[in-house]
């Protein structure tokens, strides 16, 4: 909790993120190149799916991160509503477009994988539909932030919406157990251990690490953008108060 209190000061956060950004960006490139090499050249073909199994190395990390982003947004929403942490809604606002992108990639790569393996691009199965709902939730949350003018009110309302929408995350995870779906069941995060062969599991873990470093880098960058955007707004307000409206540039949204 100590580090969270310390990071409540945006200047402290900017200083820390200044040091962390180059580390995460470098790790993204190194682990990303290694992961792509393993996924495209080292991992063996599947005996049933042949080359198309390689789509898994981008589809699965995208799906994990789409759900992780939303879970982290829900924690941030709690930070806004319960602890009133000044950076909680900054974190959630920065995460929403990133989570939406990963949800979009999950849907698109899933459709591309579905065509050769299931014979269809799309099927209204519980897993696919719940991920589509997650993507629509992300778009709704992003829109809410844009339509509500007052930042504090926008933070509160979106926090409530994020928490309500969180019910969809366990539905995505357990949809393959609760319903009879076309989508396969869990094969990595299982109580009895992964059912994937280590030759395929290892590249998958490396790609998931690369995607995670990518998310960390962009999340920090987007949070810094949001802090600067708020600084711009407060300077604009100060100038308006000093009755120099002609000097105020267009509002940065």
């Amino acid at each position, binding site marked *: 909790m100590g580090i969270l209190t310390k990071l409540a000061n945006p200047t402290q956060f900017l200083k820390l993120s200044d040091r962390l950004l180059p580390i995460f960006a470098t790790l993204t490139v190194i682990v990303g190149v290694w992961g792509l090499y393993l996924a495209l050249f080292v991992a063996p073909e599947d005996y049933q799916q042949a080359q198309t199994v390689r789509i898994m190395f981008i589809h699965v990390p995208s799906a994990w991160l789409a759900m992780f982003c939303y879970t982290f947004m829900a924690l941030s929403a709690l930070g806004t509503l319960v602890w009133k942490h000044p950076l909680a809604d900054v974190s959630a606002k920065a995460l929403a477009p990133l989570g939406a*992108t990963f949800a979009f990639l999950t849907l698109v790569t899933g459709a591309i994988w579905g065509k*050769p393996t299931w014979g269809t691009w799309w099927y209204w199965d519980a897993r696919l539909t719940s991920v589509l709902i997650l993507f629509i939730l992300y778009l709704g949350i992003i829109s809410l932030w844009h339509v509500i003018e007052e930042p504090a009110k926008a933070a509160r309302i979106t926090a409530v919406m994020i928490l309500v929408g969180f019910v969809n995350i366990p539905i995505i995870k357990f949809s393959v157990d609760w319903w009879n779906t076309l989508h396969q069941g869990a094969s990595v995060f299982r109580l009895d251990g992964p059912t994937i062969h280590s030759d395929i599991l290892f590249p998958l873990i490396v790609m998931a690490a690369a995607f995670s470093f990518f998310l960390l880098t962009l999340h920090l960058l987007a949070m810094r953008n949001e802090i600067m955007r708020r600084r*711009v707004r407060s300077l604009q307000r100060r100038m308006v108060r000093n009755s120099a409206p002609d000097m105020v540039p267009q509002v940065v949204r």
Partner: protein
Amino acid sequence: MIEGKIEFVIAAYLITIFVLGGLVLFVLIDRARIKKALKKLEGETANELKTSHE
């Protein structure tokens, strides 16, 4: 048994690279835009303070 189907793999990887690249561009362009506005406003605030001192 599915034959090769390498075109699906290529399409999936290309789309992912374009989308993630677009996301990076979006964040960097946003950053440049805000930095520009911040610089302009800070300059104007400094001028305003200087004028009021004089």
